[in-house]
């Protein structure tokens, strides 16, 4: 099967990896199947039922149980996976569908971000209150630094230096400056209950945090570390993704069966951000019963027009036409799809 998939990749134009993923960031998705100890590469334009190009289900054997978050490098040929059931980040060769190497982190790593033009990786280690910075060139960890309590989400500004990290259990957002061999702690601000994902889009002047149990997205001025505003969204937002054009955020409201599309960017200082609610829909089963979707994580395509989110209730990835605010495709996945990212 693996060879058939490989042939399929060849037919699709695997040589495109030399200069970026085919589809130019609008077609291929990486996802983690937390409940299956697997990751997958998905072509959202693939034939219905055959969207999965490959699945690596040997992560557990590589010491990576419970893969949580996943990111790719700018070139689109490497994926980085946090192993929340262990203390590792696994680096995967995407075209070869193989684990290239692993890097030891702190315990139970969660969100991760590639920065410094693909040369570095940062990962929040929820299990031992640390954050690891990894040098992807030397393939080694540069350093750890402490963040309490239970760091889950992490973001690095475009300058590659300023980082924001959520304290899941302590309800705060921490700011640090990433230096060559250490991190300098700047400060923190209370943001609400169970802050999870954080993003610092555009120039990084504002950090947006999804606060799960406060049912809100919080905007924080990264320079002053002061809270700018609290935007009520649906129930239990788990994550948010920033559009590459800097004009919107896609928020996954886990318990209200919908998404919030927040207008940001240039409009943020002029007025309250516009908010559009998009239904996450439901899956109808053979017996006629419906299960409403429970969105977990989200990603937005390079052209900022396609949204995708993982659904924990039905084990699906759902594709959303953002300008039209509607679901366009549903893709069945492995168990408990958590992490998701469009390959750029």
């Amino acid at each position: 099967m693996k060879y058939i998939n490989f042939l399929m990749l060849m037919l699709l134009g695997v040589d495109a990896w030399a200069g970026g993923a085919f589809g130019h960031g609008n077609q291929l998705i990486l996802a983690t199947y937390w409940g299956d100890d697997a990751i997958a590469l998905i072509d959202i334009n693939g034939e219905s039922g055959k969207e999965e190009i490959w699945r690596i289900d040997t992560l557990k054997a590589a010491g990576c149980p419970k893969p949580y978050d996943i990111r790719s490098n700018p070139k689109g040929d490497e994926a980085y996976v946090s192993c929340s059931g262990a203390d590792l980040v696994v680096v995967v060769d995407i075209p070869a569908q193989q684990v290239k190497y692993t890097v030891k982190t702190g315990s139970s790593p969660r969100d991760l971000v590639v920065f410094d033009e693909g040369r570095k990786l940062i990962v929040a280690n929820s299990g031992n209150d640390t954050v690891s910075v990894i040098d992807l060139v030397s393939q080694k960890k540069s350093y750890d630094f402490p963040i309490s309590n239970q760091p889950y989400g992490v973001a690095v500004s475009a300058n590659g230096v300023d980082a924001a990290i959520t304290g899941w259990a302590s309800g705060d957002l921490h700011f640090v400056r990433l230096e060559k061999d250490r991190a300098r702690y700047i400060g923190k601000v209370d943001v609400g209950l169970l802050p999870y994902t954080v993003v610092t889009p555009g120039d990084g002047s504002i950090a947006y945090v999804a606060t799960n149990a406060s049912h809100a997205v919080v905007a924080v001025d990264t320079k002053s570390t002061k809270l700018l505003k609290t935007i009520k969204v649906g129930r239990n937002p788990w994550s948010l993704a920033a559009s590459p054009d800097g004009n919107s955020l896609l928020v996954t409201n886990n318990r209200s069966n919908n998404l919030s599309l927040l207008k940001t960017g240039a409009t943020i200082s002029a007025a309250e951000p516009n908010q559009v609610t998009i239904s996450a829909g439901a899956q109808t089963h053979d017996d006629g019963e419906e299960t409403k979707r429970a969105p977990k994580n989200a990603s937005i395509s390079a052209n900022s027009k396609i949204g995708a989110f993982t659904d924990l209730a039905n084990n699906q990835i759902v594709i959303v036409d953002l300008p039209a605010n509607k679901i366009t495709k549903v893709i069945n996945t492995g168990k408990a799809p958590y992490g998701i990212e469009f390959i750029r």
Partner: protein
Amino acid sequence: MKINTSLLFALFGAVTYASPFSAEVARLPYAKGYFGESLPGLPIADIAAFERGSLLFVKRWDAAGGNPQNASSCVSCHSAPMPGGGGMSSQALVKVSSTNQIIQKNNRIEAKPHTSGETRRTPPLFGIGLLEFATQRKTDGIARPIFGALANVDSLRDFVVKAFSEELGIYSISECAKRNKRESSIYCIPQINENEIDDVTSYLRFTAAPPRSKLATDHAGRSTFIDIGCADCHTPTISLTSNAPPPLKGISAEAFTDLKVHNVGEGVKVRTTPLWGLKSYGPPYWHDASAKTIKDAVLKHNGEAVESKLKSLSLSDQEFSSLLGFLENL
């Protein structure tokens, strides 16, 4: 009066959830979507208490006067795969003395010498309200204690009070009243009131059981699980008493526990762990987090369970694999 819009949303959700479905669906105690939902079919008042309790569960508590604490919130340890779940890291391990005294990691004012203790990983709490009202708890009509690391706490509410005081260093009004009667104790300042304790209890009581896989009933490994004796202690079904609150009253569920305490080797006694949702709570597995895989946990069974373990070792590779497949799909 400040209106809590989230709560209104939840109440509205409860009404729309409760009304259109059949009674049969509403009575299933499993999460319909994912871990951490409230029980389907809850009365509105209980939904409100569940929501209030859930916020207290995730709140960061700053213990007064340097009270000893292992964590600053319930969710610090009960977090995987969702709030209310178990602990997947070493931070979520506790030491428990033989008298069921939680041994604080950061002993300060009330430091007591403990020469020995058992390590216990934080258990998931989803569906604990079903265990509370299980008829299997009863011996001669009296409910046995099943709560706490050593299964010697009688009620879910007492367990909540104990967890707040011993794990978080947060004392309730009644707990402080007891402590302040003791001559030598430091003056106790209550930080949580009795209504809030009730709300946290409601949150736990009305959290749905883990979502149920269709494979759990049809899997070929189920018969192996029964044949080799696993089901002698991990008995599949619990039935709930008629005095349980709705929607728990009189229903049955597959929790895979007899709720009894057994010796599982080297004198360690543990209450049979419910196996529902097992794979989502680890690694690590086993009561002391010493098993990296479910297979390791199976092979760690000794004491009263040694016979079943030996039978599992005599299974063919295919049968053993099927057994593991069944356990992974509960």
